[in-house]
Every structure is written in structure tokens, then in C-alpha cells.
């Protein structure tokens, strides 16, 4: 058995010496870069998303995103990096803090207020029509007996006499 020991060790030894091969990180594709770039705006050009901005500066920023992705950064980390570097304005969606809250609150409030006004207006239009429909058949309805409204009753009587 001992005579096979050394040959066996010699066979195994190369496998122990060979270093561990690490998997190469693939370079992020343009599509992967643009998933993030689409959510950012060019800090210099007005209203131009980073994924379609043609300037040299934008190309540099897209390469920066590619570099960060290759380093294993997440989308959130990359976007936060851009905010730290260039301010909130690079984001396609304004962050919900400070006065930016108004962007999220005011439109729904305005829509609800508009609906409320429309409903009230609609009801107001319908109510006179309903009253007119009831009073158009025959003589106008007399005021129901109201003990406290003697003056109106007497006025009605005078008007009928005329």
C-alpha cells in the first residue's frame, strides 16, 4: 500500500498548487447601464435623460455608471452617488423630502377638489329642475301650515284674492 502512496500524492499535488480561478466580472452592457441612466437626467443639459443625451459629458457619466455596476454597486447606491455629486435635480423623480412633497400632494388634492366642485355644481343644477317639475303640474303648492309663519300665510291669501 505504501508503494502507491507517493504516486498518489504526486497525482494530487498539481491540483493543490493550481490557484483558485476567480470568475471574471462581465462588463455591464449598454442595456444594463441605460436601465439606470434612464432614471437620471443630464446635470448640464435641460430636460435630457442621461440614456439619450449625446454630449461627451453624458457619455462620461454613462461610463461612470458602467464602472460602478462592474464594482458591484446597486442601482440605489449609484443613484445616491449621483445625487451626492450633482444634486437632487439629476433624478427623474424628485425625492420626497422638503418642498418636494408638494409635487406628490398637490395634484391629487387639486383633482379631488375639482371633483367636489363638479359634484356640488351638478347637484345644484338638478335641484331647481326637480322643483320646477313638481310645481308645473296644476296650481302652485301652497305653503304648508306653519304656525310661526302667520305673515306668509296672510300674504298668500291676499295674493290669491288678486
Amino acid at each position, binding site marked *: 500500500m505504501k508503494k502507491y502512496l507517493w504516486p498518489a500524492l504526486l497525482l494530487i499535488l498539481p491540483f493543490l498548487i493550481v490557484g483558485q480561478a476567480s470568475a471574471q466580472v462581465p462588463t455591464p452592457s449598454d442595456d444594463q447601464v441605460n436601465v439606470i441612466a434612464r432614471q437620471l437626467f443630464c*446635470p448640464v443639459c435641460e430636460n435630457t435623460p442621461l440614456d439619450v443625451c449625446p454630449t461627451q*459629458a453624458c457619455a462620461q457619466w454613462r461610463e461612470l455608471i458602467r464602472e460602478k455596476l462592474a464594482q458591484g454597486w446597486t442601482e440605489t447606491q449609484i443613484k445616491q452617488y449621483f445625487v*451626492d*455629486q450633482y444634486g437632487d435635480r439629476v433624478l427623474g423623480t424628485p425625492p420626497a423630502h422638503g418642498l418636494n412633497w408638494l409635487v406628490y400632494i398637490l395634484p391629487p388634492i387639486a383633482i379631488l377638489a375639482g371633483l367636489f366642485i363638479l359634484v356640488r355644481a351638478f347637484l345644484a343644477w338638478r335641484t331647481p329642475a326637480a322643483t320646477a317639475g313638481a310645481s308645473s303640474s296644476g296650481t302652485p*303648492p301652497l305653503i304648508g301650515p306653519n304656525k310661526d309663519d302667520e305673515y*306668509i300665510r296672510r300674504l*298668500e291669501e291676499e295674493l290669491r284674492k288678486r
Partner: protein
Amino acid sequence: MSDIVSQTSTQEAPARPRWGRIAAWGGLIVLLAVIGFGLLRVQKGPVSQGQVVPAFSLSTFDGNVIPLSSLTGKVVVVNFWASWCKPCEQEAADMQSAWKYYEPGGKVVFLGVDYVDTEPEARGYLAKFGITYPNGPDLGTRISQAFRIRGVPETYVVDRSGKLAFFQYGPFSSVDDIKAQIDPLLTP
């Protein structure tokens, strides 16, 4: 006439909630105030001559932090630039030459503020033109917003009391042009 009387008594006008009107008007006033404040800020324009310049701290590419307040008593030249800015390249060498001229005296400080740039390209730009005065990124564009710059390059010359003595839109044409703005501020 009886119709009018009967309709008046049977059909009472619904009471309009006062709180609704107050809320609507209040909301409208607040909204107009916010819009007005924003428009005022936009129309303010850059820092004007004679005005105390906004305080800021520059975090340099070397890892140092330079607050403007620490430079009181010195003439400070604040230059906004970017590596993607072609006109900035026209004055880069002149800025460095001017800095080398004033550096030994210790009375003038040049600060370069890198506007919306990427660090590798910015460092490449500094190396290309051999710029040695302190430079750093405008993090969050806070410094450029404080000065309300319109673009790059722009240069602000701050006198020894912290007030804006001169500003330059676009590149300087020569080293003498730069010196012409700084030398009068050094006379006692």
C-alpha cells in the same frame, strides 16, 4: 308672485361650509407663495459686485477641506470649470501661470471648483494643464447654486473682506487680464 314666495320658503339655500372656502383660498395663497418664491430665486441673478460672497467649503481632490471663511484677509479667486468645457481649456494655462505668480506672496489663493464632472476626467484635466492650486468637485452643485452661476467657465475674485470685487463670464484672455483684477485688491 306666489311661486316666488313658495319656492323661497320651501327651498332653503344650502348653507355653504365656511371652512371649505377658507381651505381653498388658503391653499391657493400658499401655492402662489411657493411659486413666487421660486420665481424670485430664479430671477435673482448671480452674486453682484460689492456683495458678500456666499460661504462655502471646498472638498479638494486631495482630501482636504477648505472653508472660504478660513481665507479671510486674502484675495480669493474662485474659478468654476469642467473637463468637458472647451472654453475652460483656453484659460487653464493662464490660471496656473497667475497662480504661480501670486503663490509665493501668500496673499492670493486660487480655488478651482469642478462643476458637474467626473473625477477621472477632472484629474486628467488638472494633469493635462499642470494645475497645482486646490481643486475639488462641486458636491451636490451646492457651491455653483450659491453663486448662481450661469455656466462654465466663470471666475469670481473675492477681496480681502469677503466681498465680490470682480466676476468674469467666460475665459480670461491672458495672464495680464487676470492680474489686472487682482493687483488693485492687494494695495493696502
